[in-house]
């Protein structure tokens, strides 16, 4: 099983919050910018790939016990969002790549879209 840390290094992601929680195992992935879809489908331990970068991303990730959030296309969350992510132990990773490119790279690492925790 792959860890958040391995994803960070394989995809050259920037860790901007939750840096002490990179040893979690990633159970699978989910990509969407619609919070309700994420709520409905993402599973515990999943990596979530999104363009959203506001406070509720942290709330959703924490409620679902996701392993990390990758925010794509160079979008940078506000400092309060990152502080909240640190508080809730959510690893937030940034990239300038597109969501599609990141999903492809994650698939190359063996991370699937349907995973049980």
């Amino acid at each position: 099983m792959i860890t958040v840390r391995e994803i960070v290094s394989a995809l050259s992601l920037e860790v901007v919050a939750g840096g002490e929680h990179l040893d979690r195992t990633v159970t699978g992935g989910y990509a969407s910018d619609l919070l309700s879809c994420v709520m409905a489908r993402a599973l515990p331990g999943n990596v979530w790939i999104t363009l959203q970068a506001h406070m509720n991303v942290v709330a959703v990730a924490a409620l679902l016990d996701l392993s990390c959030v990758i925010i794509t296309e160079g979008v940078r969350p506000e400092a309060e969002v990152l502080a909240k992510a640190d508080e809730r132990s959510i690893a937030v990773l940034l990239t300038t790549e597109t969501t599609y490119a990141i999903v492809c790279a994650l698939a190359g690492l063996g991370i699937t879209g349907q995973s049980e925790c």
Partner: protein
Amino acid sequence: MNANPGEVTRVQELVYELKIDQVMTRDVISVTPDTTLGDLKELLRTKRISGVPVVQEGALVGMISIENVILALERGELAAPVGSRMTTDVVSVRAEDTVVSAVNLFARYGYGRFPVLDGKGALVGILTKGDIVRGMLKRMEVEWQAEELERYRASHIFEDIESDETGLILRYRVKRQDFIRAGEAASKIKRALERLGAHPRIIRRVAVASYEAETNLVIHSVGGEIIAEIHPDRIKLVAVDSGPGIADVQQALQAGYSTAPDWIRELGFGAGMGLSNIKACSDSMKLESELGVGTRLELTIKLQ
């Protein structure tokens, strides 16, 4: 979990918290300066210790260890008095100091033990590395037990309290369009269920349902409340608001139907999936609404 460099571990904290008199050995075995090294050898052997303080008329005058005895054995000097062989340049620690000061002294001098003095300079104990390890383990054990007990109490609250029907009511007020705090009630409900020891799969369903109900209040209502009623066998969630109400409840229940404005959709809300998500997570759900009056959503999730 991996310890982070720079992160202070509980052990490190304890070294600063614990006082020497909380870990030291109080029943000090000591000798006097005129005890012979032969008698000292027997004392060390029978008590299974490797050094003792030397006390004269209640005052600490030196330290003597098994190394002095070995030297005396080699030289055939077992009849010599302790007073002629002891270390008089004694390094002592104070009972009220923290354990960390002693840890530093052990590292600096390489001694096996330090005599412990009280504020008036009287010998009140002896401290070895073993005493420190035992003291810390004991404290951690006590803390762990207290934590376990608290966790046990939280998860058995419904068994401990007797009534015909016991329920725990959590009430959260939700403000309109407070997108920053949206999700806080849901995360607090989630944490409460975790403390009560609910199954992770149940917690997930309650978290999803309460999050969606909460964001609905934030996005669509003039403000309202989320009330979670936790019973031994089920959790009932109620989301009530005082307006504006839903024009067509059947339409609102359709997946993908949304009245959210574009700017809210851009934030990733308002996908029209909220109510269907709630329904999927609930064992039963009821939505009642009247335009100009308000909306009441009630759902039940079985805990078994």
